[in-house]
């Protein structure tokens, strides 16, 4: 009886700890607020505008399965290739598709800028793609260290 009680107690405690543990791994990120935080924190050398669905679809496709949520900013003037894209993805397949989409974006922009703006190629070559849990960060900016740190801190 005593052993049974101890066993039951341990099981319950482990279950409750597990419940709490899985909650902290699936930390939610308010993409809109986080994107604004990045735009404000980083000294972008350009005017960053929020991208609507039509423009974001032109840039990234966005038609793949498992894209649950996104927010994107880009250069309004086209003076630079600065860009910020955040996605929340359902599963590993969606993460793969998202990585392909941002890679294609880098290739498109490289093709666009290599003819006449070699200084922007440097910025494209230093683009950041990072995945944490369900979230993907894509950043082209003059200060990707700050962008990356904000992303990692937000999902700790």
């Amino acid at each position: 009886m005593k052993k049974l009680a101890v066993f039951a107690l341990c099981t319950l405690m482990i279950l409750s700890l597990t419940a709490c543990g899985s909650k902290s791994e699936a930390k939610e990120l308010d993409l809109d607020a986080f994107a604004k935080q990045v735009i404000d924190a980083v000294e972008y050398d350009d005017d960053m505008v929020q991208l609507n669905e039509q423009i974001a679809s032109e840039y990234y496709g966005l038609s793949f399965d498992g894209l649950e949520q996104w927010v994107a900013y880009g250069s309004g003037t086209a003076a630079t290739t600065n860009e910020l894209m955040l996605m929340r993805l359902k599963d590993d397949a969606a993460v793969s598709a998202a990585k392909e989409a941002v890679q294609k974006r880098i290739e498109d922009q490289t093709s666009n800028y290599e003819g006449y703006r070699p200084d922007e190629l440097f910025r494209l070559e230093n683009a950041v793609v990072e995945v944490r849990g369900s979230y993907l960060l894509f950043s082209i900016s003059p200060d990707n260290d700050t962008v990356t740190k904000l992303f990692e801190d937000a999902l700790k």
Partner: protein
Amino acid sequence: MPNLKFRPKHRRKRRGAPILVGVLCAAVFSAAAAGIWQLNSTPVQALKPLELDPSVVAAFSSSPQAVAIQAIPSSEPEPSSQEPLPEEASSEPAQSASGQSESAQTPGALEEQPRVTSAYFDDAVFIGDSITTGIKLYDVMSNTTVLASTGIGLENILSKPAIKYGEETLTAMQALAKTGARKVYIMLGANSILGDHDTMVGLYGNLIDEVRRNAPDSIIYVQSVLPINEEIFHVKYNPNTDNSDIMDFNTKLAALAAEKQVYYLDVGSVFRDETGGMPADYTPDGMHINSAQYIMWFDYLKTHAIAAE
């Protein structure tokens, strides 16, 4: 002996039982709390970053009632009356555009016309390079069609599939053919100033022919290359381009437009100051323009538009 056997157990039970019950309750409670918390978390919603104000949408509607509208979208500075008043229509408090007077315009440029409304651009298409993409990015005329990309120039506009149109990626002319446009605005050449002008003008002429083929019966407007801010441009891009080079190219462009019987619009006049260059606060890098300048651009287009038949 029975007493000995039972007393320790009885004591342990009495001491241990409340603690055991307490811990069991705590475990059950935390499991239940975690479960309830997860069940009540906000469901994920797709973000819609662009939420249009209904009055703005109505202002850009193509229905005749909406055209004669009193509501003025916040991005447009025009007065509610339809009288052409260039100074009042400018959104820039700093200076009224000195280039709005006729004398500052390139010879051959279309003169001022009766003002049209935003609905004029419902069936218009804007073809161009990175500068033209700003029309879409700043959403200055959401009812019009923009076929532009950073990678486009006079040397590749007919061959490079750089325009995302629906699910396809097309050349500008392929996309143009699908739009059924009745007015076509072209702005190209900023990236070609350093090239041979006669060669570039030749390419432009081919482009005009192709536009005519893919949008028959449309009104075609060739827009000038915009002036640069030389001080900034020379540092950011190269020191070899001056506004005199741009004016030379534009003069040839105006002549080409006359030859091809299309209209030439001196849009650059809106952005030229007394030095013949672009003011520093109009541009992020000496060549591209800031958001307020797109509104100035369209204000110029509204007063230099030919009525469609």
